[in-house]
């Protein structure tokens, strides 16, 4: 197992370096940090020169990534010119804000997906199954921004009009008290849950249907195991293997910042920071967020691989 983990980690290093190099070259080739400064030349000459120096714009775009690698290896990810803080502190601060939304959203959607998968597969073609299927397709079809805006309007405008009170904040992060945090976190979490659970529950239902009609499940029933044991202990465990892959990808994406949801709810996470960084353009911040997202994706894929072995002992991690 340890050998496997070490091998996996080592194999990601060239992947990471290659990805970083391509991102750096790609962003450099398609963006121009001097664009707005050209408008105010010669007045902005000092600032112009400063940006040229910071991003080494006098160098070829193929060479520039090496300077970034050099600094990054020494733990210096640069300063975010768009936010005015070091990239490291932006990643920590914004990353924690994103985690505040991403972790509950992931946990709730994962639990709901499991429950709905079991429920739907046990009652295939029932009215409830059709209803849940309809809900899933709706969740899959609706774009995230639409779900977020509908929730904003419903809880921020309509519901207070009907009832005279407003249970949730519809924008901005509030941290004055745990209660305010709960009130401000609810709608972004709910948006992510609606979008995530739709896909996950469809996936889970299909897996469960396949598993519960398999021979070993029939054998388990024949041996006289209770339905609860058959479903929750034997069938679900196997049905979860493909779901684990999906969760690893979803969780990594959520932790990397949900651009649309965070933007709509003015949540100061990594998503809006990434948009600012791309539009500015703030190359150091783009690189910082990219490397963080890549690392998270790698780590969670590794965890997913390890979980396969735990869920199905037949899988050997050699």
């Amino acid at each position, binding site marked *: 197992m340890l050998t496997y983990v070490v091998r996996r980690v080592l194999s990601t290093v060239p992947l990471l370096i290659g990805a970083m190099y391509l991102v750096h070259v790609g962003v450099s080739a398609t963006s*121009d940090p001097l664009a707005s400064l050209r408008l105010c030349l010669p007045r902005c000459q000092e600032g112009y020169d400063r940006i040229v120096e910071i991003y080494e714009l006098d160098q070829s775009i193929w060479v520039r990534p090496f300077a970034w690698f050099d600094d990054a290896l020494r733990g210096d990810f640069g300063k975010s010119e768009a936010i005015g803080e070091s990239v490291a502190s932006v990643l920590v601060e914004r990353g924690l804000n994103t985690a505040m939304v991403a972790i509950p959203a992931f946990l709730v959607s994962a639990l709901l997906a499991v429950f709905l998968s079991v429920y739907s597969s046990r009652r295939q073609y029932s009215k409830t199954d059709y209803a849940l299927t309809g809900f899933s397709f709706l969740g899959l079809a609706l774009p995230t921004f639409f779900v977020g805006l509908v929730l904003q309007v419903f809880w921020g405008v309509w519901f207070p009009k009907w009832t*005279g009170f*407003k249970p949730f904040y519809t*924008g901005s992060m509030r941290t004055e008290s745990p209660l305010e945090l709960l009130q401000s976190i609810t709608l972004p979490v709910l948006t992510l849950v609606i979008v995530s659970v739709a896909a996950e529950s469809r996936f889970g239902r299909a897996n469960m249907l396949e598993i519960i009609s398999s021979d070993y499940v029939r054998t388990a029933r024949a041996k006289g195991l209770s339905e609860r044991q058959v479903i929750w202990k034997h069938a679900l465990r196997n049905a979860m293997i493909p779901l684990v892959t999906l969760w690893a990808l979803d969780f990594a994406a959520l932790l990397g910042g949900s651009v649309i949801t965070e933007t*709509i709810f003015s949540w100061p996470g990594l998503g809006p920071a990434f948009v600012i960084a791309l539009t500015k353009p703030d190359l150091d911040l783009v690189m910082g967020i990219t490397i963080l997202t890549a690392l998270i994706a790698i780590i969670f894929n590794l965890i997913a691989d390890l979980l396969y072995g735990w869920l199905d002992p037949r899988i050997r991690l050699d």
Partner: protein
Amino acid sequence: MTTGATRAPVMDEPCWLRPASQVGAKVMQSSFLGVTPYLFDGEVEFMKKHSKAIRFAASLFAVALVASACGGSDDAATEDTVADSVEETDSGTDGEGCGGSGTLIWAHEQEPGDLHLDDPENGLTITAWIRTGMWEGLFGVNSKTEFYPRLLAGEPEVVNAADGSVTVNYTLREGLKWSDGDDLTADDVKYTNDMLMAKDSAGEYIYLLGDRTGLDTITDFVVSSPSQFSVTWSQFFAGWKALFGEVHPLHVFPADPAEAAAAENDALRTWTQDGTVLPSSGPLVFSEWNKGVSMSLVCNPEYHGSTSPDAVNTGKAQVDGVQINFVPDTDAQINALKSGEADVIMTQPQLAFEEFGTNDEFIVASSAGPIYEHWGLNLFNKHLKKPEVREALALAMNKADVMKGLYTPLFGDTLPAEGLGNVYWMSNQGDYVDASGAAGYGKGDVAAAKAKLESVGYVLGSDGIYAHPSDGVLSLRVGTTGGNKLRELQQQLLQAKFKEAGIDIVIFNQPGGEYWGAQPFNEEALKCAGSGGKEGDCNVWDIAQFAWVGGPWPGGQSGVLRTGSGNNIYGFANAEFDAKADECDATVDDAKRAGCYNELNLYAVTLQKDANTGLFMLPITQKPSFYAVSATRLASYGVAPDANNAGPLLNVADFKKK
């Protein structure tokens, strides 16, 4: 108003004593606990086994939801209750106290990187707006885009000497104070000048990017008393009133100008010096910045009041402060206003304002700002180098279509229905002349445009588009920063009329970050413009749509259009214009100078002054500011008139919450 009044008594009750429907308990509980799910055997067994834990978790969740409902309404309760008491007690005291009516919440999309206005990476207008509320200058700009004495007791005395030098004798208003209680004196103004002009030991300016235009010709600065000082320029500088737009606090920075300049470069970013907030001379004092979320400014108790002719309240701010919530998404801003999480927004698109305009709970307002949109023409394009083609474009352009489609129905009297016809003076300025309109341009005159094209050999093709025997089809690309909805709509509205005139306009936008470097400010394109078409690549762009900023001193516009200027993307080079620009800036008489600028405008927007290379700018319209404010939460508002586009921070003293 009615909503607040009827709701307040209910909200005065503790949350747990209110009817359940008021706090959401009933609705929430029935939604989650009133449903009896259908469970299969295993689940029933599971439920039975873990019933206590499930009940506990469900109760906890229900309590949390009730509590959250409670918390949300408690906020409203507090504000409504405070507002009611303020309404009763502060009548007749407008301008005397500081704050008292609650915090004004402004949802806005832009967040500055820092508060150093001249940081090259921080050219956001929001930075200037925020500082407008904190640091005042010698002169302000009123709704007619004219200067008015702000920190000054009145118009200064101007003395012209025989040697051409000019001395201005200033007198500051009595009783000016910084927010920390220190006096604001003439020494602060001198300090501002000395700090901006400070050089390091190598003889280089220290201040990062402070504009020294006009300061560099000051030959003498004499402080004669705490409120009086004189400044002498070696020669008349037309933009003298634009100088010292902010006066910096001497007492919190080192006395040595060079050290002070270095210290300010750091302090301005966070608006703190050695951990202490920089003192304000404006109505607001910096309080807190929660990056990515909000910035808070509080009422300045030492504020000396506004002298703006547009100000209704000439005293201190009536709101406790302003909280700027950074909401990047336009729809989310609109929802924030609707849901009561913002009191004011200033956003687009206009459709939202149409909706707000028909709703009694909101008030919409607009004002003409100093920013104007135009089409800039590349004088080295094979078609556009012909004056007749440029004139055909000017004749076929229908600005009224743009105004009618985007502005006039909603904000009829804010901007002229025929669009803008001047790049020096804006339509709300007294010296404005619609030179384009007088020349017959911008009115969608298709027949005249066609005649112009045919006069230089263009022939109408079977596809309805003109073509030149040697230069080919008359197809021109117009580019701008992609994603700017308003500009894209303008392009589409104009495109149709050009097609009628046989001119094919291809919309060729690129993302904001890429556009400038890829098109008008592309290095090769600038080389072409700077070399008279001899070097670089003259085919990078054809027409560029973007904005320049006007102001009470329009002489700055000449800097863009002078021969060889780095911003002169058009390729315009005219020695007569350059000399005239110098002459205008040196003209002492205000009326003559204004007329002189109107003459310069003729070079840019008509062929009257330069029949060969004139007419390379097609002004379209000023960019108005749109505001929507909550009528139910605000008793008064001060967003318009606002010639600076500076938002609610310009006339913040006029805001009052209910």
